[in-house]
Structures are given as structure tokens and as C-alpha cells.
């Protein structure tokens, strides 16, 4: 990157830097960093909402209980709709992933917060966990028959089936990449855009209200993107799981 560009001095990617919380030392895997802090906060937020919400068990739910119940019902229905009854065995994991990503995405929107899900390292781990476990589930349930996923038996000719098998194979192995980069890319792009607009507001002086209005609108959009991306991650997990449970076309 060119240093000290003329005019605007905006560093949109600076906010994604992983720093040590105490002192300026190098960041090892055990160093308490801002990434660690905000991921822990996401876990705490989710735990508080779910534990506190499900503690009362009132017949007429209060606010917290309504939140917990509707999130539970929503994700339960999502898993059941996409994967069927057999997929419900894996519902706890999918809901955990969904809640963690939702919590991290929404917490990252607090000004000054660290967007932990904008790091490929975080999302790649989540996506690889899904990819590996889905592959293992597929082979464990269907044995070698899991490979039917790549063999489109409904295609008219054998030559076409071979071509489709190659395409299906590539698309299968691209899954963890697109699964992780989608979430990280969306979060990173959103936060970078907010930062760029904030830089405009700082540079414009008297007419700064224009970019500030734009930031407000973008913030609403980012809130929607945060929720939608958590939903998309969870529902794609369901889709991949469904492929493992019911291979073949």
C-alpha cells in the first residue's frame, strides 16, 4: 500500500487488526487479544440470552423468554424444513453456530467493537468443522453410496454424467471456501464501507451531515446483513447436511 496518500487519510482496514489487549507485545495464540475478547463476549451474550430467557418458563412469556423461544423455534423450523426429521439430531450444533455468528455479527456493530467474524481464520474454522463433519456423516451413514452425490443418475448420457461428476466434485470442495469467505467478506466489506464513509464525514467539515446520514442508512443495512449472513451460514449448513443425509439427485 502507498503510504501517506494525498487528501483523504482513511484506513478502512485498520479496524481488523488483531491486537494484544495488554501492552504491545506480539500476538501468540495464548495472548489475550481483542479477537478473543469479542468472541468471548459473543458467547457470553448468547449464553445470557438463552439461559436467562429459558429460566422462568412462564406460561405467558416475558421479553427475554419471547426472544429465546422465537430464536429456538425459528432455527428448529429451519433445520426441520431443510433436512427433514433425520437432521434434527444435529439441530443443537446448527443452532449453536447460528447463535454464535449472530451474536458476534451484532456485537461487531457496536462502534469501536472488533468484528471477529470478519476474519477468515474464524469463519474458516466454522466452515471446515461443518465440511469435515458433513463428509464424515455422509460416509458413516451411506458408506461408499455417499459418492452418489457426485453421480447425477438422471442425466441422459454417460459422457454428460462424467462431466457433471467433475463439476459436482469441484463444487463440493469449493464449499468450505465459499461458506467461510461469504460470511467474512460480507462483514469485512460492510465495516470497511462504514469506515470509509466515516472518513468522508471527517474530511468534509460543514457538509458532514450528508455522509452521516449515509452512515445511518448503511448501519441499518449492515444490521440486516449481520442477521441475514448468520441465517445464510446456518441454512447452508443445513443444506450440506441434507446432502449428506440424502445423497443422490
Amino acid at each position: 500500500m502507498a503510504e501517506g496518500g494525498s487528501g483523504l487519510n482513511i484506513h478502512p482496514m485498520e479496524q481488523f487488526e488483531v491486537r494484544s489487549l495488554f501492552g504491545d507485545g506480539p500476538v501468540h495464540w495464548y495472548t489475550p487479544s481483542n479477537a478473543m475478547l469479542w468472541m468471548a463476549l459473543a458467547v457470553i451474550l448468547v449464553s445470557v440470552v438463552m439461559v436467562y430467557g429459558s429460566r422462568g418458563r412462564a406460561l405467558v412469556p416475558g421479553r427475554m423468554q419471547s426472544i429465546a423461544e422465537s430464536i429456538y423455534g425459528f432455527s428448529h423450523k429451519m433445520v426441520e424444513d431443510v433436512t427433514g426429521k433425520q437432521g434434527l439430531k444435529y439441530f443443537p450444533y446448527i443452532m449453536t453456530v447460528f447463535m454464535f455468528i449472530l451474536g458476534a455479527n451484532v456485537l461487531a456493530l457496536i462502534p469501536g467493537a472488533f468484528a471477529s467474524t470478519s476474519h477468515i481464520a474464524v469463519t474458516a474454522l466454522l466452515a471446515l468443522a461443518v465440511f469435515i463433519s458433513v463428509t464424515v456423516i455422509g460416509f458413516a451413514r451411506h458408506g461408499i453410496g455417499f459418492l452418489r452425490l457426485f453421480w447425477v443418475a438422471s442425466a441422459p448420457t454417460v459422457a454428460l454424467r462424467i462431466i457433471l461428476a467433475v463439476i459436482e466434485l469441484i463444487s463440493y470442495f469449493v464449499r468450505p471456501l465459499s461458506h467461510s469467505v461469504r460470511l467474512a467478506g460480507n462483514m469485512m466489506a460492510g465495516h470497511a464501507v462504514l469506515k470509509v464513509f466515516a472518513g468522508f464525514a471527517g474530511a468534509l467539515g460543514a457538509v458532514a451531515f450528508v455522509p452521516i446520514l449515509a452512515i445511518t442508512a448503511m448501519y441499518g443495512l449492515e444490521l440486516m446483513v449481520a442477521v441475514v449472513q448468520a441465517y445464510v451460514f446456518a441454512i447452508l449448513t443445513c443444506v450440506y447436511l441434507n446432502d449428506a443425509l440424502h445423497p443422490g439427485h
Partner: protein
Amino acid sequence: MEGNIANMGQFIGAGMACVGMGGAGIGVGLVAGNFLAGALRNPAAAGEQTATLFIGIAFAEALGIFSFLVALLLMFAV
């Protein structure tokens, strides 16, 4: 304006990679538009298909995200 020719290639390449995002925009627009067209014809069936809508949007968007990734790699990783 100073700098070497490799940096210039990086910036031009990153800018060109962003053209791919236009394709993703067209794809997402097609998915959402066709969903809306179908949903207005048969609103009763639309509610159950929102999951399919989001899956379709996610798949269409993935390729645009790849071009974004290429741009990021050119800017920061090469």
C-alpha cells in the same frame, strides 16, 4: 504519483477483479426479482420458499465474494 510498476499492476488488477461483483449483483437481482414475480402471482406459496430464496441469493453471491477475495489478495497479500 510515484511507485513501481508492480504496484500499478496490483491496483489495476484489484479494480478489474471488482467487475466480478457486477455479475453477482445481476445474479442476486435475478433471484430476488424472479422470487417477487412468483410470490405476487401466488402469495400463499411464497412464505415457504423464503429459505430457497436465501439459498439462491447465497449461491449467486458466492462468486461475487470470490472476486472480492481476489481483489483483497491482490491488495494485501501479493
